């Protein structure tokens, strides 16, 4: 029996100060070119929280507008706003930086995040108004420290500074004097990932009416690594996040694989549920500070705002078949294998058509494809093109080669079976998964019958292999079968035993 997608959440955290302090484009520039024009101009290109909330792709990410509605808004989108936009959406929310910094401390169980007293006092009031920040969560927030101590920790103890509205409001301390894996930089990066993941988990249970106690297993699929010098990638962000979110009956583990990790993790989750190992498995990930302002130089050069100013997060619940929610088809899993090769057509054939061939399906038999849903507003000015569109053109071109569609219909294929991108360039966050929640709803509403989720990853960035990677799977409307075919009821078993005994008895009599 196939497992189902029972719910999903999508969150963003607006972190403009972390763009300046922690984005690798900026930290690298500070080292190689500290007096650069870019660094001088950067600050004036940062957006306000209100601008980020009303930015159309962000409203699509948290579920307040459908990607089809976003497609109706003429690009570029950076100068457009959704009127009356809310920070809270159908699937999640956009958290401002002050609340997020406090959430980082809430997620810190080793007393490494130090916050200014007055900052905590002011922000705690805001957090108390937050619908998902329950008393037990807020109780983890500490009263705070004197400003002097924080300045000292930053200037003398290598702590990573935390700013809000240009003011130093706290810091993340290093967890070890010598071990670089526990440096303030690494702890900061890992705590931001953890906090965005936790926010995704809290939204998942709240927005989908799920009992926290029912979750058996959590799989984290972010791109960070935690551990000390003796086990650099020791891991289990998943369990650490489940603890803060209050999933008392869950354990978990981490799945890694660059941007393809969320799709790998969803296939793993679906398999665990289908095998009956666990009933409810959550796949989730937090965001990545390193990628903040990644293409900032191009954005500033072109007079655009810094558009990579949010951390992303998501969570998806995979559960046993309830006869209602869309099913995950594990017989339609596609994969890029070691022998596939790296040419784009080999990659896309392995991910899209090889699995469809097994089921005698055409490329046009899949209603929507979700590959890499990066927001083109961010990537186009940076020279990476429109990534989702490039994927749809590749899938369409394969369709032409196979004779599934005619060449003249290539353009309409990219519209009918594709979407515009709306996800921030947070590595794994835009990869396939942004559509899972929307696809679930679209299938439940009867707007589409199925969708293919595709994750692709650049493994060569880790310098361990030159190979590319990717996996895919199909979700489709529930077939309404909640009982495994071929299984037998207790009544039937009793009948079979009775029949066997009767046969045995008659055999005895015959002898």
């Amino acid at each position, binding site marked *: 029996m196939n497992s189902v997608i029972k719910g999903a959440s999508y969150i963003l955290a607006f972190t403009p100060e972390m763009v300046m302090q922690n984005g690798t484009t900026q930290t*690298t*520039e500070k080292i*190689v070119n500290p007096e*650069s024009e870019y660094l001088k101009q950067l600050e004036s290109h940062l957006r306000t929280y209100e601008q980020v909330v009303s930015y159309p792709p962000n409203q699509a990410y948290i579920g307040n507008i459908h990607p089809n509605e976003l497609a109706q808004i003429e690009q570029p989108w950076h100068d457009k706003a959704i009127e009356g936009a809310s920070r809270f959406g159908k699937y999640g929310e956009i958290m401002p930086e002050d609340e997020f910094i406090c959430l980082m401390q809430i997620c810190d169980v080793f007393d490494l995040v130090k916050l200014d007293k007055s900052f905590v006092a002011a922000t705690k009031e805001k957090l108390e108004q937050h619908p998902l920040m329950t008393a037990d969560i807020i109780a983890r927030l500490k009263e705070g420290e004197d400003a002097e101590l924080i300045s000292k920790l930053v200037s003398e103890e290598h702590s990573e500074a935390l700013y809000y509205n240009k003011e130093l409001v706290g810091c993340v301390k290093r967890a070890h004097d010598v071990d670089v894996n526990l440096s303030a930089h690494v702890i900061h990066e890992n705590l931001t990932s953890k906090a965005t993941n936790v926010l995704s988990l809290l939204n998942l249970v709240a927005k989908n009416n799920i009992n926290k106690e029912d979750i058996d297993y959590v799989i984290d699929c972010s791109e960070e690594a935690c551990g000390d010098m003796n086990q650099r990638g020791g891991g289990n962000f998943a369990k650490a996040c489940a603890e803060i979110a209050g999933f008392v009956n869950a354990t978990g583990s981490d799945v890694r694989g660059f941007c393809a990790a969320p799709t790998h993790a969803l296939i793993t989750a679906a398999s665990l549920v289908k095998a009956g190992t666990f009933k409810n498995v959550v796949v989730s990930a937090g965001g990545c500070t390193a990628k903040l302002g990644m293409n900032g130089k191009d954005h500033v050069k072109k007079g655009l705002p810094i558009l990579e100013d949010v951390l992303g997060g998501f969570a998806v619940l995979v559960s046993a078949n309830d006869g209602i929610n869309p099913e995950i088809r594990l017989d339609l899993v596609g994969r890029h294998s070691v022998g596939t090769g790296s*040419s784009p*057509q080999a990659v896309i054939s392995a991910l899209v058509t090889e699995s469809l061939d097994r089921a005698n399906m055409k490329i046009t038999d899949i209603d929507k494809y979700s590959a890499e849903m990066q927001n083109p507003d961010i990537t186009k000015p940076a*020279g990476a093109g429109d990534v989702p569109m490039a994927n749809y053109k590749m899938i369409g071109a*394969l369709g032409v*080669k196979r004779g599934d569609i005619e060449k003249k219909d290539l353009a309409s294929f990219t519209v009918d079976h594709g979407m515009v991108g709306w996800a921030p360039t947070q590595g794994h966050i835009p990869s396939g998964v942004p559509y899972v929640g929307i696809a679930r709803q679209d299938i439940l509403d009867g707007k589409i019958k199925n969708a293919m989720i595709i994750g692709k990853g650049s493994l060569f960035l880790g310098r361990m292999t030159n190979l590319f990677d990717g996996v895919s799977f199909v979700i489709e409307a529930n077939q309404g079968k909640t009982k495994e075919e071929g299984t037998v009821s207790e009544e039937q078993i009793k009948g079979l035993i009775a029949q066997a005994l009767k046969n045995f008895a008659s055999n005895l009599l015959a002898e």
Partner: protein
Amino acid sequence: MDLENQKRVKEFAEKYGAENLVVVLGAAEGEASGLAAETVTNGDPTFAGPLTGVQLGLTVYHVCEPEIKNEVDAAVYDEQVGMMEMVLDVDDIIAEMTPIREDFCKYL
């Protein structure tokens, strides 16, 4: 262009001689191709990497340009690049690459 890649390009030019090298790009569109081409000819236009102010003047092409395509085995080219020819804006790439080669390549 990635800083580490700039460093490697510079080292190879010193080791083998700029006149013996050809750089082949695979960028996704015209402007990015032009920026990479400029980096290995006239120096890093973003002033970030080791090639800032270094005018190597290397011979540089995008793999989708006819000069490269004509020299590659047609079957291999079709297998490796064929589909992307339909996806990328090859004309735009050529339009960006040509003037940079004309202005800055020293070994054509």
